């Protein structure tokens, strides 16, 4: 399924709900554009919900990393929520689990932002 993303806001945290696959091409571009649009419009607390994303390739991982560094460069926070097993395992073997703040509960994730 092509990647789709919708955004919602809870308190001052923007939650981006993605569904589909984050792979090379339009999907990874969508992730990049979505985060850029949010940061350009002043958002500094971004929670990416990957509950409905069960496939990501190296390009998708690269875009997640890029999103993370982009938000961090403006003193913001980007966290991940509800990783599926495959995405979880990928982030683990690539050691990106040591980089990202991965959350498994939305309410707790929102509270964890500074």
């Amino acid at each position, binding site marked *: 399924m092509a990647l789709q993303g919708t955004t919602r806001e809870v308190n001052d945290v923007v939650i981006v709900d993605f569904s589909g696959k984050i792979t090379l091409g339009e999907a990874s571009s969508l992730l990049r554009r979505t985060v850029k649009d949010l940061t350009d419009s002043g958002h500094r607390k971004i929670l990416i919900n990957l509950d409905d994303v069960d496939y990501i*390739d*190296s*390009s998708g991982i690269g875009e997640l990393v890029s999103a993370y560094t982009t938000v961090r460069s403006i003193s913001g926070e980007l966290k991940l929520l509800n990783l599926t097993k495959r995405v979880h395992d990928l982030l683990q073997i690539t050691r990106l689990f040591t980089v990202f703040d991965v959350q498994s509960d939305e309410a707790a994730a929102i509270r964890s932002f500074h």
Partner: protein
Amino acid sequence: MAAQTQRIEITLETLLESVDLAESIAMRIAENFGFSEEDIHKIGMSVREGVINAYNYGNQQDPRKKILMTVELGSDRMVIRVLDQGKGFNITEVPDPLAEENLLRTSGRGLFLMRAFMDEFDVRSGPGGGAELVMVKRIPSAISADAP
């Protein structure tokens, strides 16, 4: 009578669409060969990463160049080769994506993932100077006894 090796050759265009196509083909072959769902996924991902490598780095997204994928099915293994028409590369010069200083790089994980997902992985020089990625997945012995 010894089982014969089946060989399938596919010439792919250097187009983004070839990545999905190659992945689908490899997964279908793996499924027919009797791999588990998890191994089919790993094979598909590895082929995806291999063709991305050929598309982006080997052939530099040049649509005039081709990517040759071959699949060989032996009695106990599936061997996949992805050959590009680029200039080749030395795998020892590829930065380690797990090194602390490279964790925030936005690229460079494809080779690592192929090595992680397949039982064997190697990079060789192709006949025309391009890079040939060779990846092997062994089929569990319980299934290989009944393999065609």
